[in-house]
Structure formats: structure tokens, C-alpha cells
């Protein structure tokens, strides 16, 4: 049982997660301020880095995969993300359309 006291071991998972999160942040800063890329390429790249950053938090720090029975919490998160994507994507889409026709 993993809740039993053990005094050996090293929190590798957390240290790897931390190093990766710092690396991803530095990469995002470098992409934006050191490379001369087209703006759309820059934005898509840093969004991809942000998604990896979130996966690190969820998998390495938040113990997303721990569960007893079906992964209902993952389903609720996916549903939340779907609504969020619809709200943000839909807002940008409709406002871009509005500024195009006006």
C-alpha cells in the first residue's frame, strides 16, 4: 500500500516535472523573443507548449491517473475542456466573422 511510510526513494516524478515545466517556459520565451517567426507560427507553437505544460501538471503533479473505479473525473475534465474550447473558439470565430462583414 502506497500510503505506508517509506523513508527511502526520491521524488523523481516531481523533479522531472519541474525541470520540464521550466524548460517549456524557457522554450516559449525563446520562441517569441529570439526567433523571427511569423506571428501565427509563434502563437500556434506556444499554444502547443502550453498544452504540454498542462499535461505535466495533470499527470506528474495532480495524480490524474489515480482512481478507484471508472475515470469519471477525467470525463468531467474533458467535458469542461470541450465547453471551454467551444466558448473561446466560438467567440473568436463569430467576432472575426462580424469584423469581416462590417
Amino acid at each position, binding site marked *: 500500500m502506497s500510503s505506508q511510510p517509506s523513508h527511502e526513494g526520491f521524488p523523481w516524478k*516531481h523533479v522531472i516535472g519541474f525541470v520540464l515545466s521550466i524548460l517549456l517556459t524557457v522554450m516559449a520565451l525563446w520562441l517569441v523573443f529570439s526567433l523571427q517567426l511569423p506571428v501565427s507560427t509563434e502563437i500556434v507553437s506556444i499554444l502547443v507548449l502550453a498544452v504540454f505544460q498542462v499535461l505535466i501538471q495533470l499527470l506528474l503533479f495532480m495524480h490524474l491517473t489515480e482512481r478507484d473505479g471508472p475515470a469519471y473525473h477525467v470525463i468531467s475534465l474533458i467535458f469542461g475542456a470541450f465547453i471551454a474550447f467551444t466558448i473561446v473558439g466560438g467567440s473568436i470565430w463569430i467576432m472575426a466573422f462580424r469584423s469581416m462583414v462590417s
Partner: protein
Amino acid sequence: MAVNMESLHEPISSSLPLEYQGDGNLKIFGFWVFLAAEVVLFSTLFAVYLVFHGNVAGGPTSQQLFDIRGFTIETFLLLTSSFTMGLGTYEMRRQNTKGVLAWVLITVLLGLGFLGMEISEFAHYVSIGANISRSAFLSAFFVLVGTHGSHVTLGILWILSILVQVMRKGITPKTARKLFVVGLYWHFLDVVWVFIFTVVYLTGKVM
């Protein structure tokens, strides 16, 4: 050890850590559902910000306003605090009360550092006339980033109250569950900040 013997009598979750024992499992699931709702809340604020980003009404633009050094330090402070909170949970699962107190206290200090930087950032903007009523862009900016900041403030108070309980009662199934849940909340605030860093600050510097 006494705590572990007790938890062995629980019919469910015996293969999972202490905080899942009894109804902890259900409460942790409930907190994940709350976080999913928070995702939706922040998405509406992001949508408003993105739509109004260009509506500066002759006032300062995001490119003129944002300070790279400032938001980079804020990001590193929050990322590090998320890591130390994770170490707090790790020590909790090793039944190391002192380790929990130390790492969680460091988390609080890093969180306070983040908050201090954000407050001075906001105060600076207001002092140069870039206040919440200056333009639609600034209204949306202050509401989005301020909502995150108020979550961090609440998180610090919440963490401190759980710390007092851990100091008094040690690591029991109940305090372990509370600490795990506040940890989830703290990591979630880091997730939201990653998007503020990416969508508001970095993007605001290039367009």
C-alpha cells in the same frame, strides 16, 4: 502506522493512498468536478479578453504595457510553487509531517511572492493611467488576471488553514484528503497561469 491499520478496515480504495480512504475518494472526485467548472469559468474570461484585446480606445496596447521581466518572474515563482506543493503531497504520503509543513510553507511563500509581484504590476499600470475603466482591453485584462490573482489569494489562506490542521492533528485520512485537495487546487491555478502567460502575456507582446 496506527492510521494505516485503521484504514485497512475500509472496504474500498485499499490499494490507493490514505487520502482516498472512506469517503475521501468521493470528495476528491467532487473536487475534480469543481475544477472542470473552473475551466469553464476561466474560458469565458479568456474569450472576453481575446475578443477585446484590440479595443484599446486610444489607450495603451498590450505590447506597450506588458513587462517581459515581470511576467517571466511571476511565471517561475508560480511554477516553482506548484513543484513544492507536489513535494508536500509526496512527503504526506511518506507520513513525514515535518516535510509536509516545510514544503507547503515554501509553497505559501512563493505564492505570496507571486501575489506581491502581481499587485505591484497592477499598481504600476493604474499609476500610469492604465486602469480597469480605461479601455475594453484593460477591463478584460484586469478581470481575467485579477480573477486568477484572487484565486491565488484564496488558495494561500486555504493552504494556511490546512497547515494549522496538519500541525494539530498530524497526517490522518481526513487531513491527508484536505491537503491533497488543496494541492489539486494549487496545481490547477498553475494550469490557468500557463494559459495567461501564453495567451495574455506572450501573445500580447507579439500582436
